[in-house]
């Protein structure tokens, strides 16, 4: 508990809005490059989780969704618990040293986050939006529904497919970013031990 409070240094508080802005900028980038399936809107969240701990990551995720709401995308707002859990998981994986083995970080971290994300977002999606996403991935929803799946199941399965690709990509990008950052800068973060290569 004390550890978690110590995670919130000034640099953490500065990093969080930067991470939120990164989330939104990359999300918009993917949208304007018209890349299907990927969203890439949790890179900042995972980054903060890795460098500043699980609670900071969770806060970044939740606040990002509210920020989307303020910028004209209220559809994101109800999913803030999902984003919070994503940040939390990234912090835990960092704490368990998963970053040190790239395959464990990218695939282990990415896929587990994808499953958790799909499980958590399916009920919200099913209840608030009737299980559809209003985008191209609804083809998947239609296929699952035609196959007899319930609204909840179809939403979960659709989420599983898209999230698996998207979260692995997210974790891969975070890995590449941290590798490129100077040690002098990384050393200032509260959870530097997650990423240092000895």
């Amino acid at each position: 508990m004390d550890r978690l409070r110590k995670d919130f240094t000034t640099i953490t508080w500065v990093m969080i809005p930067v991470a939120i802005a990164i989330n939104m900028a990359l999300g918009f980038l993917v949208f304007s490059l018209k890349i299907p399936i990927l969203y890439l809107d949790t890179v900042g969240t995972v980054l903060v989780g890795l460098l500043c701990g699980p609670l900071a990551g969770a806060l970044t995720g939740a606040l990002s969704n509210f920020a989307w709401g303020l910028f004209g995308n209220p559809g994101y707002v109800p999913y803030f618990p999902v984003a919070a859990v994503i940040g939390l998981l990234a912090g835990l994986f960092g704490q368990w040293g998963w970053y040190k083995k790239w395959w464990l970080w990218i695939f282990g971290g990415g896929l587990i986050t994808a499953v958790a994300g799909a499980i958590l977002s399916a009920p919200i999606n099913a209840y608030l939006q009737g299980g559809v996403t209003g985008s191209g991935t609804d083809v998947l929803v239609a296929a699952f529904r035609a196959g007899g799946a319930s609204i909840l199941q179809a939403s979960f399965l659709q989420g599983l497919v898209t999230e698996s690709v998207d979260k692995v990509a997210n974790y891969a990008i975070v890995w590449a970013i941290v590798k490129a950052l100077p040690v002098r800068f990384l050393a200032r973060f509260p959870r530097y031990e997650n990423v240092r290569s000895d």
Partner: protein
Amino acid sequence: MTSSLSLYAPRESGLHRLHPLTKLTSALLGVVAGIALPGVWPNYAVFLLLLVPLAAWARVLPDFGRVVIKIALPFALSLFVIQGLFWTGGTPVVEIGPLSFKAEGLYFAAKTTGRILVVMGSITLFVLTTRPDQLMIALNQRGIPKTFTYVLVSAIQLVPRFQAKANAILDAQRARGLETEGGFVQRIRALLPVSIPLVLGSIVDVEERSIALEARGFSHEGPKTSYQVLVDTPIQRVARPVMMLGAVALIVGAIFVW
């Protein structure tokens, strides 16, 4: 402090002059109503008879209509098509070749579209009529720590700048021969040369910002004064708890009554 990309629309209206927490409470009430109200018609009634007139009073009706339609239309289309056609074990109403629209699916689509209209409409109306920095000050006065509100305000200011930077980097890389159109793999490969410079470039000033904040007593405990004055009337002070009670009543009704 507002930017062209943030949704806040400054207008001279009674709704804009209300205290930010009043608007936040009514947005929450709207979201709860959208979820808790039963059937199809109540949600549409709330939207047409409550939200739309409020938007007109706030002189944001065109913006309101634009945002809500932009959000609700894709969902409505998907809902009517997918849940209408593929509702498990439903009673067919309209035939289209080998497929048919099921009555239960259409009813569900209508009900959910109404819910989306009210939930998203409430949030949108709130964002359109509330200045973010005033909301932050109001939250501070109620006890939310300054660090949280700093984070949101800072994020709001950074986002348009980051998007502009992302576009600039995209153009610069394109000028260096980065291929951004074409196949799926092509476009994925275009991502890394843009995202990495964007993130690395912005992280450089993270250090400078934290030094600047420390120099302004950021982590110092104790009360701080505010430059802006928020107006709160007695009617609003009473209205807010009443709205909260209304939200609780709706939830109780949703669970036990209907």
